[in-house]
């Protein structure tokens, strides 16, 4: 291939990187559904229709208590949405889903119908990482879907590098970890060692239902219950896998770059 053909092609296609976040975000697929909204107040008396249909036991309704949906365990199959007779659980078509605290993923109570989106890092950490964040990725019992959609952020359409975010080969060169997978017991030691090798101060990002709580494998004795079983987590990004837009939103939210 002659060099001029490459240049010609580039000219024809122009810049293929999306305008977001300066422009509007790309639309989620219409059947995606986005994050969920749970209004326990709308539940029918004593109704537990949503509880047994959830494959990952993300929904509970103990007798006399309101329904609670843990979006950290949710794989977004929408079985609960279909099962609910009173539209107490609905899809919002919203892509932002990242939170800083695990409890911010619990939905249902009045005032907590939707998740409480992540706040930015504090001023000191933001000064350190806000314009340059180097991450070491660790897949620990992942199925390669979260990994694939993290990789997608490196392609020309998303161009993660323009935010100063980059994946590096060595934990010694990293400011933190991005963890995917259900944390198989066989990866426990490797994950711990990788975390220890990252110089402080450091941050940890858990991507996907598996890394947050075990995902579809929740309760299997061969896995732990998410990344917090081994390391402290600073950002949780739900999904199975999260859409690339959801992951990017989480990273930018953490760095305070969506203001």
């Amino acid at each position: 291939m002659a060099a001029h053909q490459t240049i010609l092609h580039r000219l024809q296609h122009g810049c293929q990187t999306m305008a977001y976040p300066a422009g509007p975000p790309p639309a989620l697929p219409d059947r995606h559904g986005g994050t969920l909204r749970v209004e326990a107040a709308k539940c029918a008396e004593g109704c537990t229709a949503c509880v047994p249909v959830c494959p990952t036991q993300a929904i509970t309704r103990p007798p006399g208590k309101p329904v609670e949906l843990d979006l950290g365990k949710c794989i977004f199959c929408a079985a609960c949405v279909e099962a609910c007779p009173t539209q107490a659980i609905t899809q919002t078509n919203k892509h932002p889903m990242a939170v800083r605290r695990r409890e911010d993923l619990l939905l249902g109570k009045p005032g907590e119908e939707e998740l409480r989106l992540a706040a930015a890092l504090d001023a000191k950490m933001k000064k350190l990482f806000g314009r340059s964040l180097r991450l070491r990725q660790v897949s620990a019992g992942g199925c390669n879907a979260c990994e694939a959609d993290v990789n997608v952020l490196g392609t020309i359409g998303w161009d993660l590098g323009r935010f100063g975010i980059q994946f590096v080969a060595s934990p010694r060169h990293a400011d933190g970890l991005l963890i995917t997978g259900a944390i198989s017991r066989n990866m426990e030691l490797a994950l711990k060692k990788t975390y220890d090798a990252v110089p402080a101060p450091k941050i940890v990002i858990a991507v996907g239902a598996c890394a947050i709580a075990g995902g579809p494998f929740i309760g299997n004795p061969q896995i732990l219950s998410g990344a917090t079983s081994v390391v402290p987590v600073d950002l949780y990004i739900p999904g199975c896998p999260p859409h690339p837009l959801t992951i990017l939103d989480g990273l930018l939210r953490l760095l305070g770059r969506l203001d």
Partner: protein
Amino acid sequence: MNAPREFFQLSNGTSVPWADVPAWPVDEFIAATAAALEHGGRLCAWFGVPENSGTRLVAVIAYDSENTLAVGRSAPVVKSYPSLTLRHPQAHLFEREVWEQHGLTPEGHPWLKPVRRQDGGHPAVGEFFQVQGGEVHEVSVGPVHAGVIEPGHFRFQCNGEDVLHLEIALGYQHRGVEEALAGGPHRATMSQLETVAGDTTIGHATAYATILETLAGTETPLRAQWLRAIALELERLANHTGDLGALAGDVAFLPTSAACGKIRGDFLNLTALLCGNRFGRGLIRPGGCKHDLEAARGAQLLEKLRMALAEVNQAAEWLWDSNSVRARFEFTGTVSPAQAAELGLVGLAARASGLVRDVRFDHPAGWHRFAPVPVAVWPGGDVFARARMRWLEIQRSAKFIEEQLATPAEGEIFAGLGASAGDTLAVALVEGWRGEVCHVALTDSAGKFRRYKIVDASFHNWAGLALAMRNQAISDFPICNKSFNLSYCGVDL
């Protein structure tokens, strides 16, 4: 017991009462299996079924040229049996797995070590095959790798730059998929099977749904079969395109690398157009499909498919036209047809070594009974052949989808699923994008899973990568590895 003469013959997506599966004393069973493999057979699955008095070995064999599968079993084995691997290397990992899971020793197995766990609590690293000599050194890589990829351990025996031997130790991703299936299906089973290998969601989900439909005697609605066949090719398109880009990236040929990274996403978005999820989760359910492809959506899919195909063809053309790329791809990581056959390679790795081996063609089930897919084959066996195979299959998959969109099956997309037959063995093969996905289920008297065996294409093919690295420069490992692009979690389960 009188030894039966023949394995029970069945076709893909069918079942057989467990009592009708012929049983041999174990020595004769090994001999019968070896004979079958010497007469055109290929080992799809080999696993143990525990009973009170021991563990029965079960063999599922494919006669590709006769479009037939065959199944047989041994009488309960207590301690050991004569290793099949000595005569048929394709059994090597299966025998290690049976040893690990059931404690049965294959007598004479040349390299017996665990597949997933060491002493029940650690990854399967253990002892490695070592080459001795003053100039020899060892290179150890992983489990955590340099990129955004799954974990695994590679141990190279090197003389200078040259790799004399590569041993691959996996198991880091072990999540207990098969263990969790016992007594199932459970409510998480469908989701677990969709994530056996996340990039092969459609492949594994189709195999699982086929198993349950077969056990229930349910005829899958034609339109659901049609949808699954389209989704399977969309999965192939996305992964093959991504791999072409990754291969280009590893030889620093950035135009194709950059273009294919984006186009891969465009193909994933076509699957998301169909079901909302870029990996096809939630599309397939036992008994049918959950989302339909209405005419308007189909038209949108076709338009976007054509655009993405034009782009990937352009990006691939640069790759084939570049002398520097060809120089790096050609004669690198060669696996001969004889080696591929001996190791039992499947899928595109087998076809790139000249073997005509494709479930869609050899063992058509579902929609492939009505819409056959010709097999693409390339003879070289090197990185170039495996790259070229992907491009050929991209053409074929896109054409297949176009043809299917023009002639849609009508009707419902979901039929109820009946109860599973008890004490029955069902087999489902699907040609995933890497190759053969094999699921085998054995039910108990209540129709629950007594044993569920999953064999991803990667289980057969990792040894192919190890062989491809023999006498290669270690710096060629990345492109050899990418040219196979095998699944870690699909093996680790």
